[in-house]
């Protein structure tokens, strides 16, 4: 069977970049077709953000329950130790994914976006052929194409995915808990998943080739995470390279030589690469920016009418950045004048404890030639944090220019701090100064109070610290 469609907007890739672009284009009255080879929602929904956070939550809940066994805690005692069933957790996670996946389909339908299921191959910048299941092909002709093909996990040469060597996608679909897991790569995906598996009860070792964990955050922010690992018997080995896996042994190299680590699963999380292969990029006359597709500040590629968004155009490879770009491109195609010029793109690391931030850290501000003042407020001095057992070692940190007190960055580490990022990024986008934050009344008792107090600290007069 062969079909043909012509449309104003063709979106290839149904991740948070592509499906948002398609919905917005549909809302604006543009005839829109969205193609995806997999389930709607992309990496983020199907094998990234949402599933990983679901399993992290299940793992954390199990870990918390264990505190109540025996002596108990907070006056709650469990007569018997809880049990963890990874299959059950994955089943529950799949339910969430399915629900959200159906939600995306509904939203697309409401916006009158036509969804074509199958792998798209470009013939040129304005047309592609989609091969669907069961041998159907659809030719799509478009005035505008939006490339939102996302990214894929990077493999290590000596450790190809398959068998007991897992990608993040495989790890999120495991049915049985590995007894001994080695995570290769201490970036955010590796640390998030590694810590979750530790909470579920696996023995977890992390090997990292450099001397740093979570390289996008500074040492102060990472320290509480390292402490947790130490306290929970998670072995982190720096300057250690994984080179091969055979017969339940992972071979690693250090300055001292080679060593074997016994483990039943190896999870490789050494980064993600843009998905630029197998769909005909070579047929488009498009400039590249290293491995990424090169775009200007309106996400236009070097070919007129061909746009690219999300992970495939570069860092930060984050879902919310992809969505923001998708929404913008749809509006530009509809004739609005827009530019991608966020003052900050916030990011969260769902480790234990969480790290969250937006804008420049003090070090980055110095590197950019700014003279800054920094205000720190410890969560140990925040009432709400204590009542939620979130008062350990965390803090909120505000970085502002010394001359005019403009907030240039806000960071935090601690339990639940991911939910504070809304306030952080809002302050930066609105161009708030320390005095603005100082002048805002926050609810008591909430963790938001520590944001207020951190601003006061930067002004030199914190009340509660």
């Amino acid at each position, binding site marked *: 069977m062969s079909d043909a469609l012509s449309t104003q907007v063709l979106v290839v890739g149904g991740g948070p970049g592509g499906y948002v672009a398609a919905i917005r284009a549909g809302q604006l009255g543009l005839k829109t077709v969205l193609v995806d080879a997999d389930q709607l929602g992309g990496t983020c929904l199907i094998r990234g953000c949402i599933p990983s956070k679901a399993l992290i939550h299940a793992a954390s809940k199990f870990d918390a329950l264990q505190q109540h066994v025996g002596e108990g805690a907070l006056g709650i005692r469990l007569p018997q130790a809880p049990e963890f069933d990874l299959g059950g957790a994955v089943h529950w996670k799949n339910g969430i994914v399915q629900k959200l996946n159906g939600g995306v389909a509904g939203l697309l339908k409401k916006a009158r976006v036509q969804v074509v299921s199958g792998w798209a191959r470009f013939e040129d910048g304005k047309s592609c052929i989609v091969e669907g299941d069961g041998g159907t092909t659809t030719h799509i002709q478009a005035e505008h194409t939006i490339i939102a093909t996302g990214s894929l996990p990077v493999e290590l040469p000596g450790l190809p995915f398959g068998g007991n060597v897992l990608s993040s996608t495989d790890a999120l679909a495991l049915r049985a808990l590995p007894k001994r897991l080695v995570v290769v790569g201490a970036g955010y995906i590796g640390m998030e998943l590694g810590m979750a598996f530790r909470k579920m009860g696996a023995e977890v070792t992390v090997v990292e080739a450099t001397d740093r964990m979570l390289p996008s955050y500074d040492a102060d922010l990472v320290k509480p995470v390292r402490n947790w690992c130490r306290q929970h018997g998670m072995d982190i080995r720096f300057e250690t390279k994984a080179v091969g896996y055979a017969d339940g042994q992972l071979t690693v190299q250090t300055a001292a030589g080679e060593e074997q680590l016994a483990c039943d699963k190896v999870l490789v999380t050494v980064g993600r690469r843009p998905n630029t292969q197998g769909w005909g990029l070579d047929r488009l006359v498009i400039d590249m920016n290293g491995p990424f597709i090169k775009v200007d500040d309106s996400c236009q590629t070097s070919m007129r009418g061909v746009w690219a968004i999300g992970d495939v155009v570069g860092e930060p490879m984050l879902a919310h950045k992809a969505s923001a770009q998708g929404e913008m491109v749809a509006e530009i195609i509809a004739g609005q004048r827009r530019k991608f010029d966020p003052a900050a793109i916030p990011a969260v690391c769902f480790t234990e404890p969480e790290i969250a931030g937006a804008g420049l850290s003090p070090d980055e501000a110095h590197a950019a030639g700014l003279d800054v003042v920094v205000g720190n407020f410890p969560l140990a001095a925040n009432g709400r944090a204590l009542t939620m057992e979130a008062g350990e070692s965390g803090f909120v940190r505000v970085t502002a220019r010394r001359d*005019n007190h403009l907030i240039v960055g806000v960071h935090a580490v601690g339990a639940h701090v991911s939910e504070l990022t809304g306030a952080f990024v809002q302050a930066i986008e609105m161009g708030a100064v320390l005095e603005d934050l100082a002048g805002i009344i926050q609810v008591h008792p909430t963790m938001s109070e520590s944001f207020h107090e951190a601003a006061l600290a930067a002004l030199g007069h914190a009340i509660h610290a």
Partner: protein
Amino acid sequence: MGIYTFKLPDIGEGIAEAEIAEWKIAVGDVVAEDQGIVDMLTDKAAVEIESPVGGTVKELCGEAGSMIAVGGPLVRIEVEGDGNTAVEDDGEPVETASSTAPADPETPVQIPTPAPQPAPAPAAAASQATPPATPTRQVSSGGLPRKAGEKPLASPAVRRRAQSLGIRLEYVPGSGPAGRITRQDLDAFVQGHQGAASPGAGRAAKPGVEEIRIIGLRRRIATAMQQAKQRIPHFAYVEEVDVTELEALRQHLNAQRRDDQAKLTMLPFLARALVIAVPEHPQVNARFDDEADVLHRYDALHIGIATQTPGGLVVPVMQHAEAKSLWDMAADIRRLAEAARSGKASREELTGSTLTITSLGAMGGIASTPVINAPEVGIIGVNKMVQRPMYLGGQLTPRLMMNLSSSFDHRIVDGWDAAALIQRIKGLLEHPATLFMEGEA
């Protein structure tokens, strides 16, 4: 019988897509092999595309104004034999066509309609919604004046509004804390730039707005001009030239010209001056690839001749001016101008210039600021000849004066060098004999 799908062939280096200017065939027509079927507009030229096969036209894959990607289908032709459109290649074309469009032979193809382009709200309408604010240029105590290159500070809503109005916030003073640009600051800036509308003098206002799609040559010109002006820091230099003697020579030569010779205008003389002066200033005879940071300098002088045509500005090229006599140049200029005006200039005739000259002819004004024909780095324009009183040897004398208005890419050409080149040209034009003293001047 089979279907042959003819795809837009590669029509020039680096061209990814081209616009359909005009179909010369319709569905149902019988075409012969090598028959011209469509004019395609590239960035530079209209190119006639010929059919590689003979047969009956089944489908046109776009209408005038549509962009077709190189390699994308252009036309489907029913041919004797198998054609090239097998199932594994393009799907079944006949079925394809009928599945997208009604069987009506008048409208056999579904033609994509352009994205609706809501007219951007005129600045006036947008700012009426808010009460007129008095401009507050004063920076409050918290703020400091922005340093050069510092990013302007404004909330997302203010940034959006500025983008939609096409205003760069770099130019808008901010009165908020830390120099933040408030909504009022932007409103005040918009109003300040609108000028006070004069109250009606008893005549009817005309509220109509005509929407004109900018396509074809005008779209090329628009894009090229915008890119040239946005990317190239233009530096303008205007100088006057006493062309009394040159004009006398021109008239003399024209009076003697043979029938097979084209009439001499000022342009061949200017071209001649360039042939002599440019090798002394080689940096102006170049094309600048600013993405690769490479300047291509040429020994040859290929002069672009900016020419007004009914469709808009076109720049045909006089190749190898350095090897041409004055009369050859005059003939070339006439031939190129005619080709450009009738839309017959070939792609070769419209590409590859290394330096452009422009003339507004008899309308030429006192001075102009020509826009560089990117990726070149200079353009020289002649203004209108006028008789003016000049002091010469202490005497007030009528002289024939003509201004040269030039622009240069200031990234490549320094002001001093530009001035030196123009002064050299002035010297040559004011002493016309030196134009012909090859090797001696």
